[in-house]
């Protein structure tokens, strides 16, 4: 185990995968400037700056992926994905299907999002649910350094287009990363903390918040299980449902806006497939249906906090204890 930041964990993942497979290349606005160590090791053919044009960055990745390369692109902030939706959704997500399976799209598109830098909603907008709703894509959003490394490596090796979301608030968080090859499979959630009274389902920056809430609840005698989804699509339904059936109480927590978010999906799954085990309503603690504001205290208020989560749990437990 070594303790490194999420940023460094991603850098390691990229370097290792580029070393392993000459077809992996990386490009984006400032990639070659900011990832000077990759440029130095792999050269300017495989590590490239681009013009400022997200559409063609993504489209180029999609075209290259279909014809033998394995591109990783950095699209900077999630709202900029709005300029790359056709390429990601209509091309990467659909052209395998529409062609009757003639093409594969092994590519990774990285984007940052989430509160922490007080930059406002044109830089901070959690849109992972859009890509979960679109067919043919995979969506990853890790919560800690080890998973960032292991999931990014798996994403690069996956033969499908993967949206890889980096919660800004985690970027410089240190965490323990295993030495040697670290692969975390896509589509597998993790039990970040076991418990039997209630299940907190979350991902990304709100996982540590849930863990804090679980600590607080433990002091009150409530044992909360915390599930870190890690991959949004494919969603590890089995793990979520097994936990829901065990605890009978579920609170879904994320920073993205509530309506049609990942929390809606998790709640719907639970309400459909774990209904008989439920002892209380399924609750969501999420960001509001508002654009994230820049002002620091407002930005903080946007994100589900320990108190809100703990209070949601208490309400459920009170309800039927």
């Amino acid at each position, binding site marked *: 185990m070594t303790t490194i930041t999420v940023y460094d964990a991603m850098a390691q993942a990229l370097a290792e995968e580029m070393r*392993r497979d000459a077809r992996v290349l990386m490009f984006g606005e400032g990639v070659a400037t900011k990832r000077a160590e990759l440029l130095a090791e792999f050269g300017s053919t495989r590590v490239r700056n681009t013009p400022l044009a997200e559409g063609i960055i993504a489209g180029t990745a999609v075209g290259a992926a*279909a014809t033998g*390369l394995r591109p990783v692109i950095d699209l900077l902030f999630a709202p900029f994905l709005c300029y790359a939706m056709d390429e990601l959704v209509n091309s990467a997500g659909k052209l395998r299907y529409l062609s009757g399976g003639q093409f594969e799209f092994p590519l990774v598109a990285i984007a940052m999002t989430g509160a922490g830098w007080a930059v406002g909603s044109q830089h901070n907008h959690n849109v992972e649910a859009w890509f979960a709703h679109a067919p043919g894509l995979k969506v990853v959003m890790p919560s800690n350094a080890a998973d960032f490394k292991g999931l990014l490596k798996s994403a690069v090796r996956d033969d499908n287009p993967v949206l890889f979301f980096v919660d800004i608030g985690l970027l410089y968080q240190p965490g323990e990363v295993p030495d040697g090859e670290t692969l975390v499979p896509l589509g597998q959630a993790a039990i970040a903390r076991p418990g039997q009274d209630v299940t907190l389902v979350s991902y990304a920056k709100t996982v540590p918040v849930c863990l804090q809430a679980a600590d607080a609840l433990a002091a009150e005698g409530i044992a909360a299980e915390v599930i870190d989804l890690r991959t949004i699509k494919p969603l590890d339904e089995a793990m979520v449902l097994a936990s829901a059936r065990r605890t009978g109480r579920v609170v879904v927590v994320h920073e993205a806006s509530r309506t049609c978010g990942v929390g809606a999906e998790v709640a719907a799954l639970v309400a459909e497939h774990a209904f008989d085990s439920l002892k209380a309503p399924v609750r969501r603690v999420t960001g509001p249906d508002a654009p994230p504001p820049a002002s620091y205290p407002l930005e903080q208020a946007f994100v589900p906090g320990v108190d809100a989560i703990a209070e949601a749990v208490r309400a459920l437990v009170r309800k039927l204890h």
Partner: protein
Amino acid sequence: MNPVSPAAAARAAASATTPSAVIPRLDQPEALLEAMLLIRAYELRLSARSAQGGTPSTCTAVGQEAAAVGVVSVLTADDLILTNHRSAGHLLARGADPGRMMAEVLGRRDGYCKGKSGSLHISVRELGVVLTSTIVGGELSLATGVALSQTMLGRPGIVACFFGDGAAGEGIFHESLNLAAVWKLPILYVCENNEWQAFVHRRETMVGERIAARAAPYGIASATVDGNDVDAVRTAARAAIDSIRDSGEPFLLELLTYRLRGHFEPDDQAYVNAAELAAWQARDPIERLKARLLAGGGFTTGDLNGIDARVNARIDAAMAFAEASPWPDTSDLLTDIYA
């Protein structure tokens, strides 16, 4: 660590992308005419059928056969093609089987895309016709990546990307040209300027007359040529490809042509200026080639009728094949989503 050299990777990936089906040689006048007639007959047959109802409609390129055949005929088997919603010409000129294409249009299992595409996004990877997108501009966004693979994996072929005058209004056209210029990608941008963008005349959408003028700011060489003269198209396309191979840089070839039928079948073309349509009908590329062959090419009317008959027989057989092809199974709804 298990290092893979780019060359080894190229070998590994090559089988998957080098065209593997038989690509016809189109270098004799007769073959060119036959290809153009095949396209025309294919499109008219489907249009007639859809006019009767029950058959999905298509976007025909009637009147644009010289553009498709002219460019495709000078490509090599190593070259790759990207096309769009108006793709029948490009596909048939490249050697696609009209039966499998019709099966695709009808949504049948033997279609090139198992019926999942229908007419609008037919790709035929074994012929090097890749990543067809019916999103106007879609192929322009993908061509750069395909060309990047060609260069990085050391493959010899260039990438021919067909698009319309309308697509040149999408921002992605500009992004594609710029990146291709900066990264020196071997792309032949082929704009079939057919004066129409669905129900809007090109003149309503731009100041000036030439799409090719948009290449210069990116340092991209371009040419504009009569797109209804198959020989002129071939000559211009050959020169363009030579330029790409010599300079290692992209080229934009604009072909001036006209969409003689509507945007999407059926279309009464009520919005089309009758005089303009008539003027272009008089420049029909097939009639022009026929006239040339009769005038000085050593062909008789009988020869041409013979070609017509061959083509019609092929189209009859193709339609029969398509109609005999089974529907996909409902279970196919959930296949081919993920690799």
